[in-house]
């Protein structure tokens, strides 16, 4: 499996610092893309190129050159990470451009990408041995080092807890609580709220679980699909022994209604909160009743 840590931070240098990996922003001149490109630059993310067809040759914010295609941007910079801000209906084209140009980590921000388009992009990513995070994800952040996403900076601090979350705002809320309680984060990954995810819960778990600096994990799930159940079974099977705490949103949601996220829907028992919570219980993962309780449960687990 492609090593997400290697892509995001590389190896430590002689002074013990990680590398500043290069990032491309697709859709950098759009309203959303430009706002977040600036915020990522502010965070210290090494944005080396933007892509907007028709605007090649221009410069973004006096420092980031804009190219016609990802192919050109990769040839010029050698970046392996790209973040996509294009409208949903253009996502598949943008993803193909990136994956066929050698991008190894594609962070897919757009919401409302058709499922078949996402599935096609994921198939291509598998062939190219690349990772897609999203669609409909807030992105990924290694606090203090690199932010490839739309998350605000303030909730996150450096540390040793990995947070994996389907929801964006719950990721911020819970990370903020963790930070306040003294649990900084080693990495946080937004899985995304869509029915089909480039990086599933189980993939994200496998990506982060072996990092020697990791001390604990927080899983923020929600109704819909069975990725939490499959992750719980995987945790049982692999015998992962570091503390894990969970939260599941949507316990009281009515059935067969989409609750904001395209993927947040219970059909029969498929995707229900009860099913997820009971599987977490089997895997010895306590589930908080409210977001604020996550840090408390984690503290309990860490001290036991």
């Amino acid at each position, binding site marked *: 499996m492609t090593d997400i840590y290697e892509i995001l931070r590389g190896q430590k240098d002689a002074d013990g610092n990680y590398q500043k990996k290069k990032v491309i922003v697709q859709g950098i001149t759009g309203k959303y893309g430009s706002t977040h490109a600036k915020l990522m630059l502010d965070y210290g993310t090494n944005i080396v190129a933007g892509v907007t067809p028709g605007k090649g040759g221009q410069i973004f914010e006096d420092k980031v050159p804009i190219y016609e295609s990802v192919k050109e941007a990769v040839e010029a910079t050698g970046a392996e990470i790209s973040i996509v801000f294009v409208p949903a209906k253009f996502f598949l084209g943008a993803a193909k451009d990136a994956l066929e140009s050698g991008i190894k980590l594609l962070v897919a921000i757009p919401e409302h990408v058709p*499922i078949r388009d996402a599935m096609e992009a994921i198939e291509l990513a598998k062939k190219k041995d690349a990772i897609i995070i999203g669609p409909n994800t807030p992105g990924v952040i290694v606090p203090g080092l690199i932010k490839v996403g739309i998350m605000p900076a303030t909730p996150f601090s450096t540390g040793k807890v990995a947070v994996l979350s389907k*929801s964006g*705002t719950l990721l911020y809320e819970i990370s903020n609580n963790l930070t306040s309680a003294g649990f900084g984060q080693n990495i946080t990954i937004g899985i995304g709220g869509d029915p089909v995810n480039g990086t599933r819960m189980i993939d994200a778990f496998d990506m982060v679980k072996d990092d020697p600096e990791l001390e604990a994990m927080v899983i923020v799930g*929600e*109704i819909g699909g069975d990725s939490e159940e499959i992750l719980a079974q995987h945790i049982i099977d692999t015998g992962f022994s570091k503390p894990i705490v969970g939260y599941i949103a949507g316990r009281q949601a009515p059935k067969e209604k989409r609750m*904001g996220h395209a993927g947040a829907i219970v059909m029969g028992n498929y995707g229900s909160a009860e099913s997820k919570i009971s599987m977490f219980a089997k895997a010895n993962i306590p589930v908080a009743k409210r977001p604020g309780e996550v840090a408390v449960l984690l503290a309990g687990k860490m001290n036991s």
Partner: protein
Amino acid sequence: MRLLEYQAKELFKEFGIKTPPSISSKDIKKGRKDAKELGYPFVIKVQVPVGGRGKAGGIQKCSSDDEFELKYPQLLNMSIKGEKTRAILLEKMADIEKELYLSLFLNRSKRCYTIIASSEGGVEIESVKNQTIREVGLGDVDTQTAKEVANEIGLKDSQEEQFVDMLQRLSKLTIEKEAELAEINPLAILKDGTLIALDGKVMTDDSSNFRHDELQKYQEKSELEKQAEKSGFSLVELEGNIAVIGNGAGLVMSTFDLVSDNGGKPATFLDVGGGATTETVYEALTLISKMKRVKGILVNLYGGIVKTTTVAEAFIQAYNNNLIDIPVFARLMGTESEKAKEMLKDTKTKMFDSIEDAINGVVMEANK
């Protein structure tokens, strides 16, 4: 979107999947005409976007005008699991030998379509026993695979042929209409050996709506939900009296859970989204002001990129324009929350540091 049975059957017919003769109506005048055209006996089937209608009495046999006049209004006025009747389907009774199950289903974890088939039909998908499951990538089913599935559920000769044909048509429907689920349940073998779709369920991918104008006539949204979509936020309308507003689907779901845990009944699930502006939040408040049953508004915001002051400004405008006079219980966290609290200090908005306290407040208000 989740299609009703009669809508799913319209798609079945379009793709050449056999269904019993049936006609749908929304009022008794049209219903009477349909009854005459179809001829007794037939079944009257309530059309609701939720399962379990058989058990709830939503499917009734009917063999005379008297029975029709009695049952049609009953079924038209019923509601199942909170869902009112959307339409009535009159359908000829089939002479059933055996019931099977067949669906093409998007397996989200495996990220591929799966065929699920069983020789025991008529029950909900999760209770289908002796399932035959096949993964079929993006949904294309070749003849060999279809034959193997037919054989595994015990079909031979003419029935195998009919099944293969039906499955391939269902596959075509799934791909062309971008369905997440296309289900024939029960798939009946009639006494004369014909295979027919007795009931159907189709769910399509809402994100693909932009390339399916032909499906938009099936789109069922309340006026409020339509307006919300236009303004760029997602709203689910429910029957309670507490309007729940927040940013981000996960945070709103979580707030919704806590309201229900504490005995409150949500009237909305309203996610103003990651790109909320003062205008969109004002729009949201306008929608809520039209919902007369709402007795309290609960706001839970985690300001990130969207500043909490942006939201506070919308409330100030709503008060100034006398748009809302319902009590508001708010918890604002994150970007500029101190300033937002200051802005709302002298308004009818009660501010709380913890969401639990805000919820207690709004539930007490709504249950007064």
